[in-house]
C-alpha cells in the first residue's frame, strides 16, 4: 500500500525535518511489525495462535484492543475487530482501526509543519496559517473520477468501500460480506475515528450515515447504484 507524505512551507530542507520524516516511517514500520496479520511473527498473529497474551504483548496492543472495544460501542456494534474465523471461531483483526490510528500518530510527529499524510487512501492533514489542503474523494464507481473535493485546514478523511475490490467488509451481525454500499467517505477531526466510522457505515449499508449523528463527523455515501447521500454538514466551509 502506498504511503505518501507531503510537507510544504519554508525550512523543509533541514535536519529536524529529516529526522521527523524518518521517525514517521520508523513508526509505521514498527506498527506493521506489531499488528500485521500477514506476518507470522507479529504480536497479533501470535495472539491469534494463542502463543501470546495481550498483557504480555507490545504496549500498543493493549491500547489498540481498548480502542477496538470503544469503536464497537461507538458504532453500535457495526465496527467489530472480532471477525468470523475458520471453524466458527472468532479471529482478532484490528487492521481496520490500526491503519488510521498509526497514520494519525505518525503525522503527529511532524507537528509544526504543514503536512499531508496519505496511507492507502486515508488522509490526515494539518495546515498552519496556509491555504487548506484539497483532498479529492475518489468516485467509488468510477475510480478515474473524483466524486468530491474536500478543503481541509486540519483533520482527516477516510474512505471505505467495496465497489472495486469486491465485498471485503463483513456485516458483523450476519457474519457475511456486505455489498449495498460502493463507498463511504468520512471527514472529521481524527483519522482513527473517521476510519472506524467509514468502515462501520459501509458495513451497515445505505443507512450507514445514521451512525455519524451527533459525532462531529460528516460523511458521503455512494450506494452500489451510484446514488449519493451526505450528512447535513458535509462540504461546509473548511475546518
Amino acid at each position: 500500500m502506498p504511503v505518501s507524505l507531503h510537507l510544504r512551507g519554508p525550512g523543509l530542507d533541514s535536519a529536524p525535518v529529516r529526522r521527523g520524516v524518518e521517525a514517521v516511517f520508523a513508526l509505521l514500520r514498527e506498527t506493521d511489525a506489531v499488528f500485521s496479520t500477514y506476518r507470522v511473527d507479529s504480536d497479533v498473529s501470535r495472539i491469534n495462535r494463542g502463543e501470546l497474551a495481550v498483557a504480555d504483548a507490545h504496549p500498543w496492543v493493549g491500547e489498540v484492543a481498548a480502542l477496538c472495544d470503544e469503536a464497537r460501542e461507538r458504532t453500535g456494534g457495526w465496527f467489530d475487530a472480532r471477525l468470523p474465523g475458520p471453524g466458527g471461531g472468532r479471529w482478532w483483526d484490528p487492521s481496520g482501526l490500526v491503519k488510521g490510528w498509526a497514520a494519525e500518530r505518525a503525522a503527529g510527529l511532524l507537528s509544526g509543519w504543514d503536512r499531508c499524510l496519505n496511507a492507502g487512501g486515508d488522509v490526515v492533514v494539518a495546515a498552519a496559517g496556509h491555504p487548506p489542503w484539497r483532498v479529492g474523494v475518489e468516485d467509488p464507481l468510477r475510480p478515474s473520477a473524483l466524486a468530491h473535493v474536500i478543503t481541509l485546514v486540519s483533520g482527516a478523511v477516510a474512505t471505505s468501500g467495496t465497489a472495486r475490490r469486491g465485498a471485503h467488509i463483513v456485516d458483523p451481525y450476519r457474519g457475511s460480506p456486505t455489498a449495498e454500499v460502493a463507498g463511504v467517505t468520512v471527514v472529521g477531526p481524527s483519522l482513527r475515528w473517521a476510519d472506524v466510522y467509514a468502515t462501520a457505515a459501509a458495513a451497515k449499508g445505505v443507512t450507514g450515515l445514521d451512525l455519524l449523528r451527533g459525532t462531529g463527523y460528516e460523511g458521503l455515501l455512494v450506494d452500489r447504484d451510484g446514488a449519493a447521500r451526505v450528512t447535513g454538514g458535509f462540504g461546509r466551509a473548511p475546518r
Partner: protein
Amino acid sequence: MRKITFFLLATIAGLVGLFSYRTSFGEAVPQARPAEAATPSPAPPPTLVAGGRTVDGDAIFTEYGTVQVRVTFAGERIADVAVLQKHTVHEHSLVLNELALPQLREQVLQAQSAEVDTVSGATATSRAYLDSLQSAIDRAHTR
C-alpha cells in the same frame, strides 16, 4: 510555495500486509513482494512532443503489484502519460488495469495536473497511479 514529497518504498512493501483491508476470510489477497513483483514491461517510447521532456514517476507497490508511469511534459503542460509498469500479481488486477489505467490517463490529460493535493479512496490502482504521477510532477518541478 515549496512542496516536497517523500516516498518510502521499503516501508510501503512492509505495510502492504497491514494496510490492505482483509476483513473477511476465504479470499486470498495477494501481497506485493517488490523484489519479485516489480517486473518492468518494456518502456514504451515516449510520445514525441516538440520541446517536451519525460520524467518517470516512482514505482508504487500495491497489494496487486507495481504501478509506475512516465509523464511527458510540453512546457508546464502534461502532454502524455505512459504506463511503465502495471499490476502483474493477480488476475483481478489485470481487469483493473484494463479498465482503470486508460481512464486515469484520460482524466489526467483532461485535468492537466491534479487540482487536489491528495486523493482519498479505496481503490489501490488509482492510488498507485496518482502517487506515481504525483512523484513525476514533483520531480519535474524541482529540477
